[in-house]
Structure formats: structure tokens, C-alpha cells
């Protein structure tokens, strides 16, 4: 069998797994930012999702119940951010940061009894029908992945469709581009923004759940290790488009996987830096590509909306 082809397929398979939590969290952030709200709390929502997922899965024995708990916890954290950033109109940067710091602290406290214990029953690999029968790619790509990886791709496709081809998507985008116009057209700006942020939190919770239930089925303090922040960067890198987010996540996963083929030549600590350096590189390239302007960003991103201000 062709060694090169095997290498490419194996790399892609690993990249898919690594990119899954990034994709889920980035998709959520894309929706929130399309509605105009920046959420710096993604990291915190991921970590509380990871802990809630682990605890519920461990005590119930059902990883999918754990995932539901992760999603719900993320959504509650998202609602908290939405309350501060959208309803109260407090500084949304500070609110997001507060939730990240609070989430990291709270999960560290609650989860301290669970540190280092592996999850008894974690999520299992799925085999995609038909595709897994293909030669070469079948066993390497379509048998050894978690369902959440494929669901993430499906979610991206659905979100792309909703954002660009439905009224709900139009409403969401208008709220992020020109809230005053949306308001004048009878859209309830605050409501749309609120639920977009809650949705973003839910997706971040799922991303955290993937880590503690499937990717590394265990709990560790601070186990998200900056992935939530990388997801924030990916929303920008993908120019707020769910399908581009898939490509971005895959590209990212591939870079990361490839960097580990250098492990004979570099110390492990230096390789661990890679995702963070890639993130900076990716954002720099995005800026270059668009001539130094935040092209593609929703017009009213980061601006609280108060009726009658403009």
C-alpha cells in the first residue's frame, strides 16, 4: 500500500479528532458574533461543560447523559453572559472574562475530588455505514472517530444553511450588522442576541463534553488548556462562516498533528506551544489576506444595542 497515502489519511483522521472540540465551540461563537455579541467566556463555558459532563457520565454510567449535562451547563453559563452583556449591557469583554475566570475557579473547586480518575464508560468510536467499507480510508478515517466529530460537521452544514438561507438566519445576521434597522423592522434585537449567546454557550459546553467524555475521558483542572480561546480565534479566521470554520478546524488539526511528527527532533514542551503559535499565525494571515481590515466581521460586533442611540 502506498505509504504516502496512508500517512495523509492517518494525519487527516487525527486532525479530525483534534479539531472536533474547536469546531463545536467555534460554531457557537460564530452564531453569537453574527448576532453582534463577543463571548470571551468560551473557555470558561467549555471547562464547566467538561466537568458537568464528566460528573454526570460517571455517576449515571451514560456518556450521552453526560453530554446533555455538558450542553445544559454551557447554555446556563451562556445565559449568564447574555444577561450581563445583552440585557444589562455591561461591558461584554469584562463579562466574558469574568465567566472564564469564574468557570475555571468553580470547576477547579468542584472537580478536585475527580482529578485523575478515568471515566468508567466513555464515548465509543462509531463506524460510518458504507464509508467504512472503502479501501484505505475506510478503516483509517471512517471507523475510528467519535459520533460527535461527524455531528460537528453536520452542525456546521446546518448552521451555514440556517444563517444564509432562512429567515431566522437573516434576522440573526441583521441584528449583528445593523441592530437599529432590525429593530425598526420589528425584530426583537435583545431576544435574538440573548438566544444566540445561549446557543454559543451550549455549543461550548458540548465542546467541553467532547474532551472529558471522548477525547481524554477523564477530568483534569484546566483541561481545556486554552482551546476555548483558540475557538474564538477560529471564528475570526473562518470569517464568521460555519463552512469555513470546518476548513479552519481541519487545517488547524492537521498542522497540530504534523507538528507531532517532529517529536524526535524537538522537546515535547516546544511542540505543545504549536497550537498557540498557529493561532497567532492564522490571525495574522487573516489580517494580511484582507489588507489589514477586519473584513467580514459583523458591522455591530461588540457594540451593545440601546434603542434610540443612533
Amino acid at each position, binding site marked *: 500500500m502506498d505509504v504516502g497515502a496512508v500517512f495523509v489519511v492517518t494525519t487527516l483522521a487525527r486532525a479530525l479528532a483534534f479539531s472536533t472540540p474547536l469546531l463545536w465551540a467555534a460554531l457557537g461563537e460564530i452564531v453569537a458574533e453574527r448576532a453582534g455579541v463577543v463571548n470571551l467566556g468560551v473557555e470558561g463555558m467549555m471547562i464547566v461543560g467538561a466537568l458537568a459532563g464528566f460528573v454526570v457520565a460517571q455517576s449515571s454510567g451514560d456518556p450521552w447523559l453526560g453530554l446533555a449535562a455538558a450542553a445544559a451547563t454551557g447554555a446556563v453559563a451562556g445565559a449568564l453572559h447574555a444577561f450581563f452583556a445583552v440585557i444589562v449591557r455591561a461591558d461584554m469583554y469584562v463579562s466574558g472574562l469574568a465567566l472564564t475566570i469564574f468557570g475555571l475557579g468553580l470547576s477547579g473547586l468542584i472537580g478536585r475530588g475527580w482529578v485523575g480518575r478515568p471515566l468508567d464508560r466513555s464515548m465509543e468510536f462509531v463506524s460510518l455505514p458504507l464509508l467504512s467499507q472503502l479501501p484505505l480510508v475506510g478503516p483509517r478515517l471512517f471507523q475510528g472517530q467519535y459520533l460527535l466529530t461527524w455531528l460537528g460537521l453536520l452542525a456546521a452544514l446546518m448552521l451555514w444553511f440556517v444563517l444564509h438561507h432562512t429567515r431566522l438566519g437573516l434576522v440573526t445576521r441583521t441584528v449583528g450588522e445593523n441592530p437599529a434597522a432590525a429593530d425598526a423592522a420589528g425584530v426583537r434585537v435583545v431576544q435574538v442576541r440573548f438566544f444566540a449567546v445561549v446557543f454559543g454557550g451550549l455549543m461550548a459546553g458540548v465542546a467541553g463534553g467532547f474532551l472529558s467524555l471522548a477525547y481524554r475521558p477523564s477530568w483534569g483542572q484546566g483541561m481545556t488548556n*486554552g482551546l476555548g480561546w483558540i475557538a474564538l480565534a477560529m471564528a475570526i479566521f473562518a470569517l464568521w462562516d460555519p463552512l469555513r470554520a470546518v476548513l479552519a478546524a481541519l487545517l488547524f488539526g492537521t498542522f497540530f498533528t504534523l507538528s507531532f511528527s517532529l517529536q524526535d527532533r524537538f522537546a515535547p514542551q516546544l511542540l505543545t506551544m504549536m497550537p498557540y503559535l498557529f493561532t497567532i499565525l492564522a490571525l495574522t494571515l487573516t489580517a494580511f489576506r484582507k489588507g489589514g481590515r477586519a473584513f467580514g466581521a459583523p458591522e455591530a460586533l461588540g457594540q451593545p444595542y440601546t434603542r434610540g442611540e443612533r
Partner: protein
Amino acid sequence: MIAGFRLEQRGSIGPLRTWALSLGAIVVAMVLTGVLFAAFGVAPLAAFATLVDRTILDARGLSEVVRRAIPLMLAGVGLTLAFRARFWNIGAEGQLLIGGVAASGVALFSGLPGPLLLPAMFLAGFAAGAAWGLGPALLKVRLGVNEIITTLMLNYVAIYLVRWLINGPWKGRSLSGFAYSDVFEPAAWLPTIGTTRLHWPTLTLAIAAAVFVAWLLTKTRFGFEVRMMGESPDAARYAGVDSFRTTLVLVLVSAGAAGLAGVGEVAGIHHRLVDPASLSVGYGYTAIIVALLARRDPLAALVTAAFLGWVAASGDVMQVALRLPSQITGVTQGLVLLCIIGVEPFLRYRLVRVPRNAGNGPDGVRPVPKGVQ
């Protein structure tokens, strides 16, 4: 909205009210922490009494509070400057670590004569911290790259850089099996007060830094430009503020201050380069709370740093004297920041009684012309 009342935006906010509300935020966060104590089966009031007794009323405990406050002061003061210009430097943690790395490099390998060693370490730490902030600053002003993410990513890069150094090239020869560098020669140790770990030269430096940044902000053209960039970027542009130069300078000062904090930790406490988790214990992140709780005022940051230094020092007491998990301090820090956010509406709006049959705004908020705020 509540019948008979409406929210009205305040024109200006007095400093007294700001302080009262910051204090209110602290009180609420403390009450919630008390609830946590109760949840762990410890009587809250007795617990707080023990904490105060062992930290503030005890000389050694107090010295621990202050020595924890030192890095928070330096990094926090720097952040007040950055946040004033709405440059979201979330990278104080990394800048602090790199400052510690540079100081360790000078202490271990420079071969400088004793008296020059400590000044050289502080200079190197400032320069290294500033350099760590330079990249994100350049990317922000030249290409518009989001500084929140770049500064944060560099925190992780700094963490793994330190880990690499202490496991690899700088690994101590005298200590097998442990991941830290060799111990510095005594000339590179900062003096402390008595037998405590309170390295007073760094404390002096922190206070001087606060005064310096306050002077910059209120008395210089540079400070005026910084405030203008933060409060109305459009006006700053029309007024001809050189945002490139101003941002660069403010980030260098801000990140350099965090670098100094790192120097204090290696030269004053550890006397060698240690694992990032022991070197910093999250000071760079806590410094964000310090700056925001101080409402971006450098002198006030000295006070809020002392408060958060007390929270950090309380963690040790909780573990030893109260058998409470030290992780509670992490929750308390988060609660403080959440409460700051929670009181913000009280700052910006006031409840006004509306006479019967008077016209009410569409959603109860009376529009205010743009320039007023």
C-alpha cells in the same frame, strides 16, 4: 419596567459612587464566599474571623498578604494603563513569566559583578516583558489583529517555554530529578524584611510604578492620548493622535511592568527559575481583576492588589487552619469580577419616579444624546 419608575442614564459618575459600588461588589463576593464556606460545613463568620486573625492581625500572615500583592500591584498597574486605551492585554501572565526568565538568565549566566546583578535583572525583566507585549501591539496597530487572543496565546507559549528551559537547557546541575534551574548566587537575591518573604525593593518599585503611571495618565500629553483612544477612538483620530506610537509605548510600559513582577518572584521568593505554576500561580490573570476592580486607576490598583493579595494568602490559611480546599480562592476571584459586572448598571443608570400619565420611553430607557456620556 417597574410601574411608576424608569431607568435614566446618568450624565456623569462621581468617584465616591464608583468606590462605594466597588466596595459593594467586594462585600457581595465575600458574602457568596461565606455561603461556600457554609456549603463545606464551616461557619462563615468564624472562618472569616480565622482568616483575618491569621493574615491581617498576624505579622507573618500580613507579610504573606503583602508579598502576594507585590506582583499583583506591578502587573495590575500596567494593566490599568492598557485598559484605559482599551488595549485588552490579557497576557500579563506570560509577560510576568518571561520577565522571570530574563532575570534568571542574567542571574545564572551573565557573570556580572554582584552589585550590578540585581539592577541588570530588573532591566532585563522589564525589557523581556515589554518585548513579549510588542508582537501583539504591532499586530494590533499594523494589521488590526485581535490583541485579546494574541496576548493570551503568548501566555501558553511562555508557560511551555519556561517548562522547556527548566527541563532542558537550564535544568539545574545540582538537582537531579527536579525540574528547576540552579539556585542563583546570593548577590541575585532580593533582600527581605526580617525572616519574611516580603521583598521590599520590589514593593517600593511597585508603588513607584503606580505613581509613575498615574502621573503619565493625568499630567502628560501621552496620558491624554491614551485616555482619548480609550474613550473616543474617533475623536482621537481626528485630533491627530498617533495611535501607532501611543499604543506601542503604552503596551511596552504595561507589559514591562508585568515583567518586573516576574523578576520580583524569581529574585525575591524562589531564587531560581521554577515551574510556571509555582512561579506565578495565576498572578497575571488576577491582575486583570485588580485593574478592573480599581476602575482602571493605577493608584487604586495598589489597594485592590492588596485586597486580592489577601484573598490569595487566605487560600493557604484555609487549607491549613480551616481544612477548606484552597481552590475556593479561585471561585472568590471569579465572584469579585462577576460582582463588578453586576454593579455596573447601578453606575450607569438610576431609577427615576415617573409622574402618572407622563410619557415613557419605548423600553423605559430615556435616550441620551451621544456626546453626553
